[in-house]
């Protein structure tokens, strides 16, 4: 039930963002509704974390970092998906709106990815005694972060040249295609993992499942809203550049 809701919210959010990108400036009004919904979901989620989710036996109250760490995973991946979709769209149609989608997806995605890399160690230190552990999830998140950063570097360094958008579109596609292989490789390289085994597989108590589910839906909402605002900014920037070019300043 929870996972169905989460999947639904992911599809809705992704669909809305892509729809929005087709005509950002006209459609951005819908962002306030999404923003309000995200805010409400965040409030619900926080309430659940504080009042509803049980205190875990082994780790104690620190375990509740789980509810802010796991929900960040979906936005991290969504960022890549949007970057790849935008990349393909731009290569095929050459319309800037696709590139704006890709850029916004990458930027917001890297924010959530960086957040995971910071919150993960904050959780690891009290639980395992080390700030950093080379386990499957943390390591793959790090590599994903490198891919994001490489994409953003390429964007920054190529900026201004005609090729910039083409190249970043290509890299976005390559980067996203590499993700499953990266996961396989890190898993292979690690042998055994120190990360808490995926609770979903061993059956999460209902309260925990619902709380983390609420967090996931809330974060997806936040992600979508942030991408929308970022795309609006990109559209405004593009228009202002165009106007400046026409005026010859």
């Amino acid at each position, binding site marked *: 039930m929870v996972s169905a809701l989460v999947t639904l919210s992911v599809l809705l959010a992704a669909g809305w963002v892509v729809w929005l990108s087709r005509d950002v400036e006209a459609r951005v009004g819908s962002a306030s509704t999404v923003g309000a919904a995200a805010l409400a979901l965040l409030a619900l989620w926080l309430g659940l974390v504080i009042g509803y989710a049980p205190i875990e036996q082994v780790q104690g109250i620190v375990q509740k970092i789980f509810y802010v760490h796991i929900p960040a995973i979906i936005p991290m991946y969504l960022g890549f998906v949007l970057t790849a979709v935008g990349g393909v769209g731009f290569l095929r149609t050459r319309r800037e709106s696709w590139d704006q989608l890709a850029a916004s997806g990458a930027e917001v995605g890297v*924010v959530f990815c*960086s957040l995971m890399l910071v919150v993960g160690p*904050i*959780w690891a230190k*009290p639980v395992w005694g080390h700030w950093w552990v080379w386990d499957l999830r943390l390591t793959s998140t790090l590599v994903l972060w490198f891919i994001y950063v490489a994409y953003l570097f390429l964007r920054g360094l190529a900026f201004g040249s005609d090729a910039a958008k083409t190249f970043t579109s290509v890299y976005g596609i390559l980067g996203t295609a590499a993700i499953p292989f990266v996961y396989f490789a890190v898993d292979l390289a690690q042998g055994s993992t120190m990360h808490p085994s995926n609770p979903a597989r061993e059956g999460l108590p209902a309260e925990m499942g619902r709380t983390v589910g609420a967090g996931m839906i809330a974060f997806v909402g936040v992600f979508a809203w*942030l991408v929308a605002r*970022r795309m609006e900014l990109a559209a405004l920037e593009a228009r202002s550049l165009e106007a400046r070019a026409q005026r010859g300043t």
Partner: protein
Amino acid sequence: MAYLLAAYAITAVVLVGYALRIRAARAALLRSTQQRS
């Protein structure tokens, strides 16, 4: 407990901060285009 609060606080600060950055950039952009016209 400190770790727990730190994790949530950092998340809030980062996300809110990023949202504010977008808003500030947008406002600056709108101001500069208004000045020109």
